[in-house]
């Protein structure tokens, strides 16, 4: 059963079209990777799905009956609970906040103004499952990049049991930490949380996801990862990575090498 249905979605920013005519659907338990070059509209698309940006055309339908469309208000509200891991560059680097304060703030969608025992328990179990319980009293800004991402992931987990939106969760992390992060996300997917992830890392996208959305302003591909691997698009994209080189006469990298 699809939980999100996106129909002919077009979004613009200050009069410039960023995303045009994108249609896809996400089912419960999916692991969808949104891939594409810089400036292809990945983040804009995600912000539209989250209701942070109003689409120009088309609509997004949720299984619970909510929708984001031109007619409706951009600040639609899910009945569904969602978690979101924003791009790290959006956050302030010198914000004084402890890990516990940040993770707890994810539980706030459970109405109410103050944290009860239930919320504290939830935050602690989220931190425990991501291995950051021991640093809960430390200041966020003093942590390493990998630890900060875990804190933000724990906060996102506090906000949802259903679906996580991740905007480049491994940007700027070293290879070991990146691998850990991917494994963690995989585990979350295995316990039933739907994952929608923007990624620059096509290799990891192919390895972990079961659906791929390839954006290039308009939608170049949407389907299962297996189908995507067979497309020229994928080969072209992978061509930038020497290990995945498909060595034939058209290969740009081979041509370059033969010149040297």
């Amino acid at each position, binding site marked *: 059963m699809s939980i999100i249905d996106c129909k002919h979605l077009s979004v613009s920013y200050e009069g410039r079209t960023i995303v045009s005519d994108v249609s896809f659907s996400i089912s419960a338990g999916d692991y969808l990777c949104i891939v594409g070059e810089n400036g292809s509209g990945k983040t804009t698309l995600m912000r539209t799905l989250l209701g942070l940006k109003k689409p120009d055309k088309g609509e997004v339908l949720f299984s619970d009956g909510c929708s984001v469309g031109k007619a409706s208000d951009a600040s639609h509200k899910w009945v569904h609970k969602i978690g979101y891991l924003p791009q790290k560059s959006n956050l302030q680097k010198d914000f004084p906040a402890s890990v516990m304060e940040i993770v707890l703030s994810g539980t706030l*969608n459970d109405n109410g103004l103050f944290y009860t025992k239930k919320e504290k328990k939830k935050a602690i179990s989220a931190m425990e499952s991501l291995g950051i319980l021991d640093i809960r009293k430390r200041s966020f800004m003093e942590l390493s990049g990998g630890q900060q991402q875990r804190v933000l992931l724990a906060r996102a987990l506090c906000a949802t049991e259903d679906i996580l939106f991740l905007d480049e969760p491994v940007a700027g992390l070293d290879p070991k930490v990146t691998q850990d992060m991917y494994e963690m996300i995989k585990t979350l997917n295995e316990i039933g949380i739907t994952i929608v992830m923007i990624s620059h890392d096509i290799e990891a996208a192919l390895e972990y996801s079961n659906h791929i959305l390839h954006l290039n302003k308009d939608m170049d591909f949407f389907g299962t990862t297996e189908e995507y691997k067979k497309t020229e698009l994928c080969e072209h994209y992978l061509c930038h990575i020497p290990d995945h080189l498909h060595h034939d006469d058209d290969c740009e990298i081979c041509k370059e090498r033969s010149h040297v």
Partner: protein
Amino acid sequence: MFRIIAEMLSYPFLVRALICGILLSVSASLLGVSLVLKRYSMIGDGLSHVGFGALAIATAFHWAPLAVSIPIVVIAAFLLLRLNENTRIKGDAAIALISTGALAIGILIVSLTTGVNIDIYNYMFGSVLAIDKTSFWISIVVCIVIIVLFFLFYNRIFAVTFDEDFTKATQAKSGGINLLIALLTAVIIVLGMRLMGALLISALIIFPALSSMRVFKSYKRVTISSAIISVICFVVGIFCSYTLSTPVGATVVVTNIIAFLIFFIIGKIRIRKEP
């Protein structure tokens, strides 16, 4: 020293200024943490100029100062917030535009009507005599309301300040928090302006938060410590202003500068101690 304090407390107007100032300092510094972290410090400054313009108009037409200036400054706060949300750079310029514009209109009206007299001077730089009985009670009630609202919405204010996008995307009731912050800021500025001065009131909002951020690294500690710093600075400031017969607004700001320097040095020493 105790003799001087006893002497100060024997003047009813000074007692009013002291109580009012302490409550103002607490509420201004609580809001200040959020404003500074949201990069809205300049909004506070812009609003105080708008407040000056509004007070000048009210004086010229013999209207009740608070009744005129509170709604005007609240409207200006909403406008500035809107502009700031659209694009950052334009919002920045808009603040400069609105604040200098309001100041100019205020001065113009003043010179066309009453002329620059002691009232206007007091609006700009503050006066310990400004708190009469009516504005005393209004300030007390409003400050208590602000402090209560801040505690009620503390967790939501933190969430919006730390990451507005996440909060908007995941929470049903996040939209009003920015408006709440703007509204409370506008009210605090108008109330504090007559004691501290239109040109100096934003210091009461910004300094304590910046000082405590030098040393403390969690939101709760920064909030609590900035309220404490703010009250201490105000009390020391008003005491010095009485003994040295200096203007109260400027003296409180200078005390805040000294507190900032102390916290700055403590912060530096702490960093050096850690490996």
